């Protein structure tokens, strides 16, 4: 089967494949859910099943799946919060708004190696597990019931959320999740117990004496190297961080240019020292620096960063790349990223050169090689 690229957008899901022959163009070969808001997509290779999360403005969050093809989608269960105890006070700590025990956004979907355990991260902060391919979901109460959970707050949304789920490539029971804003949490026993592991992360948006609090960090995206599982990268709200010790400690990268602000990060599957980012000016100006769309790459573990721009617009470009909208394929050579303007670019040489695939898609939430 030729390589596919799935693109989840504000108004539908698109499948692209690369044509053969000399043209080698990436083309849209299938569409699904046109007009609907697709927040997350995951292709599970073992069972050749694709899962899509939809966020209907009126009707709530729904999940759909399809097996072996794109024509027969069926709705499956969506993550569902349990009944909130009547006497429980549960509010977002900044706004003091009551925290809804109801899925606001299915933000990310991941699957274990054997394909039968799915994880889903949601707003307002619940992590869900499915052991039956999405027929049912269970809230991971061991994390939800932690006292620290009530200190998590919204970053860009009214309520906190789990956007990154890294399943250890050598151990399905070891899972690392990134939370905006709630730091990085790790389980080594399939979700029975959890450790907060954001030591070293720095929050510039907090008063000086709280900037290194682990539980208030805002890692916009956390990714794990597939062949060097102790190595993680995080694009944080105010910087780029790296861990080489299973997320036990994090180190801030100081040589990032043209900006250390952004949402997306991808790590090379076979080289933990190589990672890519798509920077913006700052949290106050979520546009490319000087109107020039670039990808940032390090190949030396963050000691230095290159600015990659061949093929990318360098005049009046105002694209923002969301946290799930940058991906690298399994050999580490092919990359894709999509933006808020509906533009999609692909590189087949590790980011040295980029080709515009389309500039006419809806705002892109996620891209995913399969």
């Amino acid at each position, binding site marked *: 089967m030729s390589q596919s690229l799935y693109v989840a957008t504000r108004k539908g899901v698109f499948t692209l494949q690369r044509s053969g022959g000399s043209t080698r163009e990436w083309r849209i070969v299938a569409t699904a859910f046109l007009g609907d808001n697709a927040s997350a997509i995951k292709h599970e290779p073992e069972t050749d099943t694709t899962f899509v999360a939809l966020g*209907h*403005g*009126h*009707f709530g969050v729904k999940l759909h799946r399809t097996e072996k093809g794109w024509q027969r989608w069926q709705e499956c269960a969506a993550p*569902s919060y349990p*009944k909130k105890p009547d006497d429980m006070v549960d509010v977002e700590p900044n706004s003091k708004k009551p925290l809804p025990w109801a*899925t606001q956004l299915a933000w990310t979907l991941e699957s274990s190696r054997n394909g039968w355990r799915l994880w889903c991260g949601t707003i307002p902060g619940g992590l869900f597990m499915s052991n039956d391919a999405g027929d049912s979901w269970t809230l991971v109460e061991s994390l939800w019931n932690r006292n620290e959970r009530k200190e998590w707050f919204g970053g860009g949304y009214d309520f906190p959320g789990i956007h990154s789920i890294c399943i250890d490539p050598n151990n399905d029971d070891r899972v690392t999740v990134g939370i905006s804003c709630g730091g990085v949490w790790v389980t080594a026993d399939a979700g029975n117990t959890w450790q907060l592991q954001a030591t070293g992360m720095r929050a510039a948006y907090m008063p000086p004496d709280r900037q290194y609090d682990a539980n208030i960090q805002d890692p916009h995206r956390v990714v794990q190297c597939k062949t060097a599982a102790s190595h993680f990268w995080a694009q944080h709200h105010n910087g780029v961080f790296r861990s080489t010790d299973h997320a036990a400690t994090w180190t801030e990268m100081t040589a990032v240019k043209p900006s250390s602000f952004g949402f997306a990060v991808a790590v090379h599957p076979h080289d933990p020292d190589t990672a890519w980012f798509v920077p913006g000016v700052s949290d106050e100006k979520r546009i490319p620096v000087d109107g020039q769309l670039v990808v940032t790459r390090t190949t030396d573990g963050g000691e230095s960063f290159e600015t990659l721009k061949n093929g990318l617009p360098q005049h009046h470009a105002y694209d923002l790349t969301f946290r799930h909208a940058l991906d690298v394929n399994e050999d580490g050579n092919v990359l894709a990223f999509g933006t808020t303007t509906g533009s999609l670019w692909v590189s087949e040489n590790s980011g040295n050169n980029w080709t515009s695939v389309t500039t006419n898609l809806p705002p892109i939430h996620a891209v995913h090689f399969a």
Partner: protein
Amino acid sequence: MATVSFTPNIQRHVSCPTSEVAGNTVREVLDAVFENNPNARGYVFDEQGAIRSHMVVFVNGRQVLDRESLSDAVERTAEIYVMQALSGG
């Protein structure tokens, strides 16, 4: 029996035919509808059983006030409409 009708826009996702059911409150009426059509429940109610933020329910032309417990009274021959709120886009 109360008559319960749904916005046409929901039909694309889940079939919700107009139905006649008995009940003294909005909760009783809609629970009866969704007992016969369980796939539709999550399109109108959230996990806590409240009306979704961007859905609205009218009883004889009056918008339901109690969106959580759904305690608004329903007359025996009431006409109930489950609609979308424009706040949802």
